[in-house]
């Protein structure tokens, strides 16, 4: 049986030297940015382990709200949950559409007056395998409970979008190796963008515990 290997990750942050001072410039940045930049500003927020969270799990939405002080566009961008997206390009298209629509509906382009510009960044991930491996649901559950939060990020967010698997590594393994399709689907239905990594861990553990209690499933 193929075991599940938990793998931590470390993010290397890169500066691009590109910045935006108003919403039109931000739109251009998003149009021209590399997929790694789009991904960084819409996902790696979770990996930064902020104890104090900004209003939204998106750098674009936070910048618009906090630095440009355009709450309407900020809120529209915050509603763009990338859940269910198969490709980073889909995330980019949504961002462009919402900003473009917003700019078409107003006469003056909102800009930074007192705040800081938006600095475009990108990142790459280094994977570091842990010693934690699982061969059944009980081992999976116990390892998930103590693994570093970066492993959850790696197996959920990285796997889905940058890894282009469309689903988390967790649900792929639970379904394809253990045959637990229902549990796998329940994990996929968690709105991962609404929780920090620790919240996500708790949700998945809760689903695993239910499965273990109900089915006595140790396969």
């Amino acid at each position, binding site marked *: 049986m193929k075991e599940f290997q938990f793998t*931590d990750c*470390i*993010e*290397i*942050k*890169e*500066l*691009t*030297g590109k*910045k935006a001072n108003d919403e039109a410039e931000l739109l251009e940045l998003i149009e021209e940015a590399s997929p790694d930049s789009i991904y960084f500003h819409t996902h790696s927020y979770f990996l*930064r*382990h*902020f*104890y*104090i969270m900004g209003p939204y799990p998106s750098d674009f939405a936070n910048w618009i709200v906090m630095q440009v002080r355009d709450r309407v566009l900020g809120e529209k961008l915050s509603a763009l949950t990338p859940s269910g997206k198969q490709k980073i390009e889909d995330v980019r298209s949504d961002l462009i559409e919402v900003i473009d629509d917003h700019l078409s509906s107003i006469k003056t382009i909102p800009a930074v007056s007192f705040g*800081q*510009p938006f*600095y475009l*960044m990108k990142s*790459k991930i*280094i994977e*570091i*395998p*842990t010693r934690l491996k699982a061969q059944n649901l009980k081992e999976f559950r116990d390892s998930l409970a103590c*693994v*570093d*939060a*970066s492993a959850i990020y790696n197996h959920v967010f990285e796997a889905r979008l940058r890894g282009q698997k469309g689903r988390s590594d967790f649900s792929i393994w639970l379904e394809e190796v253990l045959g637990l399709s229902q549990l796998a689907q329940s994990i996929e239905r968690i709105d991962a963008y609404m929780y920090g990594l620790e919240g996500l861990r708790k949700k998945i553990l809760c689903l695993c515990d239910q499965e273990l209690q109900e089915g006595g499933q140790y396969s």
Partner: protein
Amino acid sequence: MSTLDWESYRNIAPAGIVDLGHRVADRLKGKKFVHVNSTRWGGGVAEMLHRLVPLFQDLGIDTRWDVIEGAPEFYQVTKSFHNALQGQNQIITKEMYDAYLRINKKNGLKMNLDADMVIIHDPQPAPLIYKKKKGSTWLWRCHIDASRPQRKVWNFLKEYVSKYDGAIFSLPSFAQKLSIPQYLVYPSIDPLSDKNKELTQEEINSVLEQFNIPKDKPMILQVSRFDRFKDPVGVIEAYKMVKQYNDCCLVLAGGSAADDPEGLEVLNEVKNAAEKDKDIFILDLPPDANIIINALQRAAAVVLQKSLKEGFGLTVAEAMWKARPVIGGFVGGITVQIVYGQTGFTVSSAEGCAYRIRYLLNNPEFALAMGQNAKEYTRRNFLITRHVIDYLSLMTACVKK
């Protein structure tokens, strides 16, 4: 240099990070690393290297730290460079550029820079890139706020920086138009160093008694070099405004680094601004006064870092780690370190600083909660453990196989 034990951080750093460090370091076994800067003592860069280098060694990574040497003339030139790169108007003559290059050349001749990776810290030793050999990786680590440098000086330095394999900056706003990759790594503090370790109340009291600082009134503190970018005179202005409403004392604790010839001049300006106020304490401390600074930070009711320019405020992170509420200038790294209203306040004027000092002095429960938030935020973002992991990951990604 002291020996340090990576395992000592297990119960202080966020869970899991110590094990992660061991696993990443395993990938770098057998490689050689060298760090180079311009001073062994004084200033944040030297302070960080004193801790980082032994930790790399404890993780089994062959790491050395070397320092370039120069006459006072050289430090005068590099101080002008430093100020120009931080946006201050400076006149730099051809003779000064020549002296800078000559001293770097001279240092390069006697330094052993054979390693898999060389990390050069700040502008002073940047021209050493001429020593780079094929197969090695060189990174230039910029610790200063270079977001709006004096163009002529930056263009001169850029010729050398562009030859590196990559540059590391402390904030996204410091990125420059360069043809090489630019990485982001926040600096850090060490929770086990003399400056940050736990102290007993007796130790704290003893320091206050040593300097005759009153224990019966709240202390406002700024710890920094006597440098105009730290706005010590602005701090005194803010204190004088607060003093009209709240009885308190002000401690300005600092010193000067070996490569900073302006320190004495600024110290005299600060003494003049203090006007012999008996509740203002100006402490010109030696570079090794770490326990004193630690005690002062722990005794302070409010800590200030009212900088006008700041690459990254190490003293901000130190005070936050001690659960103090911090008021910082709305500049550079301080805007990343302080989440406004939650882990501290940022201000843009002496008046704003005075208002927030009064607010914190008169709302002690709020100040207490803010201090606790600050401590937790620092644990996750600005401790040396996170810094080591960032460097290890960069080394893993950049060093040639």
